[in-house]
């Protein structure tokens, strides 16, 4: 079965003043894959995915999602097309309840259907194990639970492409195990793009790994290939 390309970029660049955070990135993400994006701090990973989902505009180059050029679409339209982005720095509605946070994610898809809204909101919460905390104020949750809430908001959108920016940061070992199982389950009908520093998580989940360094792709391949790649070891894994 030939894989359909869900998302691709050509010559994608982003400058911040004189700093070239992302340079000439050609990137292809086949549908159904779990792709990990790794690289040292400051490699341009977050900048790159922020351009994908429209949080920041590209300086030059193009982004294609499901065959459509989305380079100049505002973020909310890209989200409506089926992207979801979970923030690296936890960004939730801290004064609203856990339920309301996820309901806002689900509501965009379902509109006024109250029964379905409630059902799917609770389902998304159940998947990350937060259902029992539905009525708590989100800002009162422990940090790890706030990370899980972010993921639940992503799941509630039922995206075609789920972009997770360092999702396991701050999670306990047990929660990481559950996270890995959850993402495997989600990947049955969602393409996942994962920025991750936790290498065991990457090795456990990723079909393919893309390595960024100084804003450029320096390697791409299966976990085994990346592990064997000497460039990557020099740049990132510490030789």
């Amino acid at each position, binding site marked *: 079965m030939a894989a359909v390309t869900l998302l691709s970029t050509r010559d994608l660049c982003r400058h911040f003043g004189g700093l070239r955070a992302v340079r000439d990135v050609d990137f292809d993400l086949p549908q159904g894959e779990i792709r990990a994006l790794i690289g040292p701090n400051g490699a341009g990973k977050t900048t790159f995915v922020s351009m994908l989902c429209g949080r920041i505009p590209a300086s030059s180059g193009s982004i294609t999602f499901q065959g459509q050029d989305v380079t100049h679409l*505002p973020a909310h339209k890209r989200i409506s097309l089926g992207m979801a982005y979970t923030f690296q720095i936890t960004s939730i509605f801290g004064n609203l309840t856990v339920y*309301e946070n996820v309901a806002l994610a689900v509501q*965009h898809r379902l509109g006024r259907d109250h029964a379905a809204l409630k059902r799917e909101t609770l389902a998304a919460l159940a998947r990350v194990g937060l259902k029992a905390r539905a009525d708590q104020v989100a800002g009162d949750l422990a940090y790890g639970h706030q990370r899980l809430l972010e993921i639940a908001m992503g799941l509630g959108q039922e995206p075609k492409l789920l972009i997770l920016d360092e999702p396991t940061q701050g999670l306990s070992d047990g929660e990481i195990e559950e996270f890995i199982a959850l993402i495997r389950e989600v990947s049955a009908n969602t393409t996942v793009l994962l920025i991750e520093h936790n290498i065991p998580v990457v090795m456990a989940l990723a079909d393919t790994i893309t390595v960024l360094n100084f804003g450029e792709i320096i390697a791409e391949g299966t976990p085994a290939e990346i592990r064997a790649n000497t460039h990557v070891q020099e740049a990132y894994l510490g030789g």
Partner: protein
Amino acid sequence: MKRALPLHLGLIVLLFALQFALPAYHHGNLARIMVMATFAMGYNIMFGYTGLLSLGHAMFFAAGMYGMGLAVTQLGTPVGPAFLIGIAAAFALSLIVGLLALRTIGVAFMIVTLMFSQTLFLTILYFGSITRGDEGFGIKQATRQIMGLDLSDPTIRYFAAWLLFSLTLMGTLWLVRSPLGRVLIAIRENEERARMLGYDTWRAKLSAVLMSGTVSGAAGAAYGVLFGYVGASFAQVPYSIFPLLWVLLGGAGTVIGPLIGALFMFYLIDLSSGVTDAYMLVVGVALVLLTLFAPKGMMGMVRERWLKWLP
């Protein structure tokens, strides 16, 4: 909704019943307060629910008031249709101001709304030959009639103010429970996150400005009709600050907060000015105490401590 609906309907019934119990003086006050609370509820849609702090809401109140008043005096329109013209004027102004002011955020947004409001005030003075400038103009008692009902009659005036207030209260309650209302609250809490959930936050904010400005304009038009006076003082800075104060005192982002705030402020001034000439000092101390001990306003505190479900 199970608990919120009886509470708000109960408040409406209570206000309706009060007109039979209150002495004339308080009866008249309450009619005025209900119109001003409507103004504040309009303000609350933007400030309390969407997190947009306007310092120029007097312009919407005045747009409604002058739209109505000028239609009566210049075009000879009956007050019923003139009231609708006032609402339309406020809607048009909110559209223009929204489209321009929403290009800014935060402090710049406050300044831009303040600036537009001053512009309207100065425009009213500039066209003094029609608006009679500072002095303003009266709406003759003979013209203040809708379907044979004399709106200057205290009972009918109370009923009209009550009707406007009740419709706005129920409208606000419906709004904040609706999908759009949830999005407005999401914008207030974290606009970037709301956008990254796929919501067109700019469009949602524009609809908040439209609703807020139009409701405030309806209050202005009603004030002119019910109390028979249209004046430039209503377009000045104090009338931009009052709704902010009422909403802050009563509880920003609560449906009944604006009424509580307007009621409290009115009687605080009324009672303290009966006791001392330095009544503004009393008002000032009361405001400081409230800010210290109930920073979320009275209904905000009630919600935090007792009624978590309060919309």
